[in-house]
């Protein structure tokens, strides 16, 4: 097989690990691919690089292909999400001032109860809160809005602003924002700089939220199906490698390098191990499954996940939610994922949609090989999302 060089863009985050691992551990090479990794300065730049053909694939926020399908944002060009690269992995954090007030109120910082944390934060906020998220179309924004709507925070005046992840520490230090929802390592870096603390993992809001996807131009997926298949397989194997406990330290070392994240290994390991330091005092909390790269069929792009995101975006911007569901479902390409992995021994689920939020514990489901156990995917308020329901 002739080696093909594939330009691929990523944002410097812990969950860019599948791309770094695919290249560094030889999974790409085994599929005859050389990944030319290009770090993007912002999500909009990454999207433009992909849309205008500077790169052929990207590590992308799961909500971006869906927003583009709904004609939202500066550039709208059809993208395909051919695989999910990671599930969960965000944190909600607060300024040092709010942290003090929460402590004074007697909040336990249990780091696993979104209902309690919402109530406590609403009380501490005195009615007003400015919250930073990395991008208007992101799981960060969706989780935040979902959490606000379903807790006492709904009675506060909340302003959600866009703050690029590496600038989150500065924004919280300068009082531009009171709280944030961001991907690692940037939440932990706020704690490292002593300007704030962590309140909740994203997982405490939705326990199986698709975070980053492998995105390609829809038209490229049609003209280069074999290349796409090779890329999906290489990334799938990288994700499987990442899910093995023995890989953790090696992965942290790879990501820590100056040309990738340039952040201490120990800080990166917090996300990978799920052992997060939540305050300046060094308090730690354990959150199993803080970020999932593979377990529980994490890489499968469920059309129902896309529909959930589409519906949330539609409700917020006043679009028809049923039309939005259908448009969104077209951008999560479970068909392309199945084609790429057919015959590799990868076990594939029998269905391409599920009722999101219906599993409260790991559950075996029908699959080609009979070996898939899905992780719990509940929402903190117990609601479920039926992709065909009202």
């Amino acid at each position, binding site marked *: 097989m002739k080696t093909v060089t594939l330009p691929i863009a990523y944002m410097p985050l812990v969950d860019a690990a599948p791309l770094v691992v695919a290249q560094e551990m030889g999974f790409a090479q085994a599929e005859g691919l050389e990944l030319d990794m290009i770090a993007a*300065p*912002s*999500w*909009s*730049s990454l999207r*433009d*690089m992909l849309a*205008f*053909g*500077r790169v052929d694939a990207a590590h992308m926020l799961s909500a971006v292909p869906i927003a583009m399908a709904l004609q*939202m*944002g*500066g*550039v*709208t060009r059809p993208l395909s999400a051919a695989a999910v690269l990671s599930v969960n992995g965000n944190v909600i954090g607060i300024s040092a001032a709010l942290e003090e007030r929460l402590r004074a109120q007697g909040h336990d910082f249990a780091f696993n109860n979104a209902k309690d944390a919402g109530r406590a934060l609403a009380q501490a906020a005195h009615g007003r809160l400015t919250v930073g998220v*990395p*991008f*208007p*179309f992101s799981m960060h924004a969706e989780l935040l809005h979902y959490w606000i709507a379903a807790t006492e925070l709904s009675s506060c005046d909340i302003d959600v*602003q*866009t*703050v*690029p992840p*590496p*600038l989150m520490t500065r*924004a919280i230090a*300068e009082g*531009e924002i009171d709280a944030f929802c961001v991907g690692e390592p940037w939440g932990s870096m706020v704690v490292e700089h002593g300007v704030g603390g962590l309140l909740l993992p994203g997982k405490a809001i939705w326990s199986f939220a698709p975070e980053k996807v492998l995105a390609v131009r829809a038209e490229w997926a049609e003209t280069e199906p074999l290349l796409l298949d090779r890329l999906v397989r290489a990334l799938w194997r990288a994700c499987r490698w990442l899910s093995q406990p023995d890989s953790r330290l090696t992965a942290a070392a790879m990501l820590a390098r100056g040309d990738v994240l340039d952040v201490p290994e120990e800080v990166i390991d917090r996300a990978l191990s799920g052992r997060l330091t939540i305050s300046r005092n060094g308090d730690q909390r354990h959150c199993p499954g803080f970020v999932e790269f593979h377990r529980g069929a994490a890489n499968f792009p469920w059309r129902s996940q896309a529909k959930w995101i589409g519906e949330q975006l539609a409700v917020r*911007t006043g679009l028809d939610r049923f039309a939005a569901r259908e448009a969104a479902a077209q951008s999560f390409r479970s068909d392309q994922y199945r084609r790429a992995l057919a015959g590799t021994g990868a076990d594939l689920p029998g269905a391409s949609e599920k009722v999101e939020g219906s599993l409260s514990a790991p559950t075996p489901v029908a699959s080609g090989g009979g070996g898939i156990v899905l992780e719990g995917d509940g929402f903190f308020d117990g609601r479920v999302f039926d992709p065909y329901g009202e």
Partner: protein
Amino acid sequence: MAEPLTIVVVEQDRDRALQIIDALKASGSYDVQVIGNVSGLARKIAAFEPDVVLIDIDNPSRDTLEELTIASGPMERPVAMFVSGAASDLTRTAVEAGVSAYVVDGLAPERLMPILDTAVARFQVMRQMRSELAETRRALEERKIIDRAKGLLMKVKGIDEDAAYALLRKTAMDQGKRLVDVAGALLTATDLLS
């Protein structure tokens, strides 16, 4: 005669901002505003009610501009990155030059073209200068590594500078590696063993 268009340029570097203003003013009659401090960027931009926003593609604060693409009220004017129809090629050129333009929906392409042409030309020059600067810095860094490796060889093996350089060079050629990589490996190995 239509009202002059309002252009907001987001640029933290004062000299670069002045260059862009000069270039724009030379190409037409525009009301040009510069925002240097990016905190609260979306709010500041909204206050100017601009027709066009120009920003460096490499500026991480660019993401805050995406908020402007969602009109949140009937009085707000949505903006889009200019991609429609014939201007698609122009947008691609702009992306390659390193500038992104956010434009109020419905602005006539013939009014936008001269602005974008000017911005593209200016950004290309600045990008060129930046990459030359980066290249110079990199060359300097490599020079330092090679010099340290040479010094080490001179001390340990008791040879002169030319011989040390020749040894590094030969090793690099034998191993099919870059001189600086061999020098770097030598320094790392020495650090480990010391």
